[in-house]
């Protein structure tokens, strides 16, 4: 509204427009803002310097300042001074100028102090009730005063009414829970004063809008429904669309119609308050929830004439309820998914809710459960304890945390861990108990398995054939096996601690052993401790071979060790015996060796004797036979000379035998000097040497190159020497001597040297005698020799780790093969 000054020449119509304008202002303005808007509007209209709006308290308490415009003037007068403006105290008529007040009038001084030169004061009355005073101070021009006075006189009833409504509104604000009755009251009063309060209707509209409260009236006889603005807004329609019962009905949610109609019928018949909820589908698709209340009014004949009531928007509440329900469903679903679900009890411990999963498990109903039926399905071993504990828990408002077993409908016992807490409100009062039931059967089974496993371990230890001891680092003996006690003869009571054990078993040496035991607790692996001699109860001693290993920690953190012993008393005795026997054996070996050495040295002495002493007589025989033949031959006849020849020949053979035998003996004792030997050259050399002894035969040899060998050159030379001389000897009657020397290499490793002749050969039947000492296969008259040569060759070859063999056939020659390994056997 555009403010402007009232003009003197303006017509009555214009004045009325002003009145209407102010009236609309009064109707459209929020009651809380009424004073401010009204005073500022009037100040502009009238040109007054200050406008005061005083409200009459109505209970004889005088006036209070409702509003001042401009606001800075609110302290212009004190509360007491304001009472001067009360129509009952002010001069009547009130002079417009301050100076017109009778001198000495208290108001004159008051106004003068406040700098007020002129004023207009309008009592605000409605229906004869004084509601307040409107005071205009220091008007700019007194010319227009009359016009203002006229206009204000017209407006004052409306203002008074608005003031009254504002006061009523404040009451509504303060007492929101009483708003319905207030609204009804207001409506009734409005109805009674329709004429006076036409404009105040808007106030109600405001109030209703704020409260989402619509008021309505249904004239039953005429079937006309009228309602407040908010009423139509709640239904989402224009007034014309909700004018009768049929229309009302059609606006309801289809599911609610029948019920609401029935309610209305019942209410009309029985004169009782109408209070029902229904839903209204809004054009946008939303659902509005309404709570409707009403009273029925009856005519003189007792027929229902009209229903007057309210509609209250409870959508938010319904939605909150729905949300709450959803949330409850959610929690319930969560509860059902927790093994045996959740439960809720009253503060005094009575169950009010248990999850379906639990009820199904134990086969009781919620009602039974609420009557402590859950106690009946407890395991008899748990029931008494659990119920007592629950009572105690409720009494002390402690945490509920207990394990017990429920009998399931499947006939099995179900171990359950129940946990719960008291739920408290803001004041800390317990509103309920809430908790869960957890299925711990798997844990229980695992516990049982663990227990069984521990039991097995315990029995394994207890019944072990070996003494076993479990002990902790503080010296406690956790467990001693039966065998431990049986062998030692100490009872478990006597072996409570390691100190008990060491004292009994080790006596004075216990401190040393204790050091060894203490070391065990820091082990991280098995350790073999070795033998300890322990003393038994009966005073005997046993030897125990101990092994220990760490066994983790006890629940209280103490380190534990398992020590196991093997009773090796008998074994050690046997071992000692074995050791003794070994030593004895060793001694015997040494003795025998010494004996053998003695025998050996005797043999050497014998060889020496043979070498020295045996030759002398032979030499004497030969020598004196020689002297005889040289110096006395002429005195002997032919037979005598022949016999002398035999003596000489046999003594010569004897000398040869002795020499060969000594050689043979020496070969076995002489140390070998191994070296690389050019066998071709060696064999050739020996051949030439030997062939030279038989110049008359001009023997020939067919020799192929020989692989080199490793051996003692002198010895191998002897081998060749013997074999070649042998071949030459046995071919001496062969007109065409054919001797062949060669080698066959077998597997690229072993070389077999051979020498073949076409001489007398031998019968394979006697091949085993061929290499024996003094063994001869031919008579000495045909083939001279001592029978030592081949034996010597074999001995040399054996010392080299090789082998020698012969093939032959009588009168068809012989072949000798021999081989030498690279590394001659040392034991040969």
């Amino acid at each position, binding site marked *: 509204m555009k403010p402007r000054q009232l003009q003197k020449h303006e017509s009555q119509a214009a004045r009325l427009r002003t009145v209407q304008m102010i009236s609309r202002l009064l109707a459209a303005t929020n009651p809380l803002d009424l004073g401010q808007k009204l005073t500022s509007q009037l100040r502009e209209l009238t040109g007054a310097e200050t406008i005061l709006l005083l409200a009459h308290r109505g209970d004889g308490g005088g006036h209070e300042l409702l509003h001042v415009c401009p606001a800075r003037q609110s302290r212009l007068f004190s509360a007491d001074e304001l009472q001067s403006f009360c129509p009952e105290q002010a001069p009547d008529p009130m002079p417009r100028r301050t100076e017109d007040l009778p001198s000495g009038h208290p108001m004159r001084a008051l106004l003068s102090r406040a700098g007020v030169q002129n004023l207009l004061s309008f009592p605000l009355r409605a229906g004869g009730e004084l509601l307040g005073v409107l005071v205009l101070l220091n008007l700019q021009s007194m010319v227009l005063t009359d016009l203002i006075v006229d206009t204000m006189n017209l407006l004052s009833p409306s203002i008074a009414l608005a003031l009254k409504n504002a006061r009523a509104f404040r009451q509504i604000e303060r007492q929101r829970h009483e708003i319905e009755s207030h609204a009804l009251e207001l409506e009734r009063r409005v109805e009674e004063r329709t004429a006076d309060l036409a404009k105040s209707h808007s106030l109600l509209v405001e109030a209703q809008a704020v409260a989402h409260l619509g008021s309505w009236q249904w004239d039953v006889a005429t079937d006309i429904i009228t309602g407040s603005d908010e009423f139509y807004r709640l239904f989402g329609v224009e007034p014309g669309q909700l004018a009768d019962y049929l229309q009302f009905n059609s606006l309801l949610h289809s599911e609610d119609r029948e019920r609401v109609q029935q309610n209305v019928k019942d209410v009309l018949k029985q004169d009782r308050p109408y209070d029902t909820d229904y839903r209204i589908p809004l054009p946008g698709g939303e659902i509005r929830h309404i709570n409707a209340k009403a009273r029925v009014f009856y005519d003189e004949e007792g027929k229902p004439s009209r229903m007057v009531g309210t509609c209250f928007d409870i959508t938010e509440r319904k939605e909150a309820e729905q949300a709450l329900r959803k949330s409850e469903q959610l929690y319930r679903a969560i509860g059902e998914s927790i093994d045996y679900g959740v439960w809720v009890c009253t503060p005094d411990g009575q169950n009010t809710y248990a999850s379906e999963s639990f009820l199904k498990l134990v086969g009781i109903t919620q009602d039974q459960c609420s009557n402590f039926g859950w106690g009946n399905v407890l395991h008899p071993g748990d029931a008494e304890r659990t119920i007592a504990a629950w009572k105690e828990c409720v009494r002390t408002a402690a945490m509920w945390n207990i394990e017990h077993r429920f009998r399931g409908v499947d006939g099995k016992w179900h171990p359950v861990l129940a946990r719960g807490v008291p739920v408290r409100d803001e004041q800390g009062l317990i509103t309920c108990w809430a908790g869960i039931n957890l299925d711990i059967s798997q844990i229980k089974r695992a516990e049982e398995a663990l227990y069984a496993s521990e039991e097995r371990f315990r029995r394994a230890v207890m019944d072990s054939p070996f003494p076993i001891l479990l002990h902790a680092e503080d010296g406690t003996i956790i467990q001693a096996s039966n065998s431990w006690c049986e062998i030692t003869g100490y009872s478990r009571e006597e072996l409570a601690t390691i100190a008990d054990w060491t004292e009994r078993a080790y006596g004075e040496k216990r401190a040393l052993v204790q050091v060894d035991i203490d070391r065990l607790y820091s082990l991280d692996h098995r350790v073999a401790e070795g033998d300890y001699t322990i003393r038994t109860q009966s005073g005997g001693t046993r030897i125990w071979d101990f092994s220990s290993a760490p066994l983790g920690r006890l629940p209280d953190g103490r380190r534990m060790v398992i020590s196991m012993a093997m009773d090796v008393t008998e074994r050690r005795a046997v071992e000692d015996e074995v050791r003794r026997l070994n030593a004895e054996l060793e001694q015997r070996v040494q003795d025998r060796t010494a004996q053998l050495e003695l025998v050996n040295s005797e043999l050497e002495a014998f*060889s*020496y004797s043979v*070498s*020295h*002493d045996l*030759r*002398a007589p*032979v*030499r*004497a025989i*030969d*020598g*004196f*036979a*020689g*002297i005889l033949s040289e110096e006395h031959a002429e005195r002997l006849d032919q037979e005598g000379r022949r016999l002398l020849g035999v003596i*000489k020949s046999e*003594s*010569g053979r*004897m*000398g040869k035998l*002795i*020499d060969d035998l*000594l050689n043979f003996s*020496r070969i076995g004792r*002489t140390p070998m000097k191994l070296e690389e030997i050019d066998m071709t050259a060696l064999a050739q050399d020996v051949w030439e040497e030997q062939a030279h002894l038989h110049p008359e035969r001009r023997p020939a040899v067919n020799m192929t190159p020989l692989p080199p060998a490793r051996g003692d050159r002198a010895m191998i030379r002897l081998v060749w020497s013997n074999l070649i001389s042998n071949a030459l000897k046995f071919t001496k009657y062969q007109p065409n001597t054919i001797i062949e020397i060669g080698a066959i290499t077998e597997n690229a490793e072993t070389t077999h040297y051979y020498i073949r002749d076409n001489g007398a050969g031998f019968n394979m039947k006697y091949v085993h005698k061929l290499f024996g000492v003094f063994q001869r296969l031919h008579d000495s008259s045909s083939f001279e020799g001592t029978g030592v040569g081949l034996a010597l060759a074999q001995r040399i070859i054996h010392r080299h780790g090789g082998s020698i063999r012969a093939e032959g056939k009588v009168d068809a020659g012989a072949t000798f093969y021999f081989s030498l390994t690279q590394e001659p056997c040392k034991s040969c």
Partner: protein
Amino acid sequence: MLEKNKVEILLIEDNANDAEMTLRALRKNNLANNVVWLKDGEAAMEYLFGNGAEPGGPPNCAPKLVLLDLKLPKVDGLEILRRLKGDENARVIPVVVLTSSCEGRDIAESYRLGVNSYIVKPVNFEKFTEAVRQLGMYWLLLNQLPETSGAKTNSEDRE
């Protein structure tokens, strides 16, 4: 018995047969004019160093050749060799071991002690005779000894 300073060959041999054959061989070769034959080691030591002579004393004779058997009664041939070669004056006397032993250790020990020659007596009579002839010829005729010997020489006797 010859005078000691005329002795050319000292034969120390316990075996009478061997001694006879040795002497015969020497005789046949005209080498046996000044030969003394001693039958055991003790006798040899006494002859060489004198009975009761303090140990280490010089020999009281200086033959041109000693033929020494090893295996001797009482005092071993090696012991006699050790004494002779261990003595500063006697060391120059040629000693030839003439023995039956062809044991390596006897040979080695003899040479270690300083023997001049080591001959194994051949069993064969002809070879034996030949061996004695050769060694006699060699040591008495071919071999030259030093002029001055620590022992009482027989140089005047030769003149």
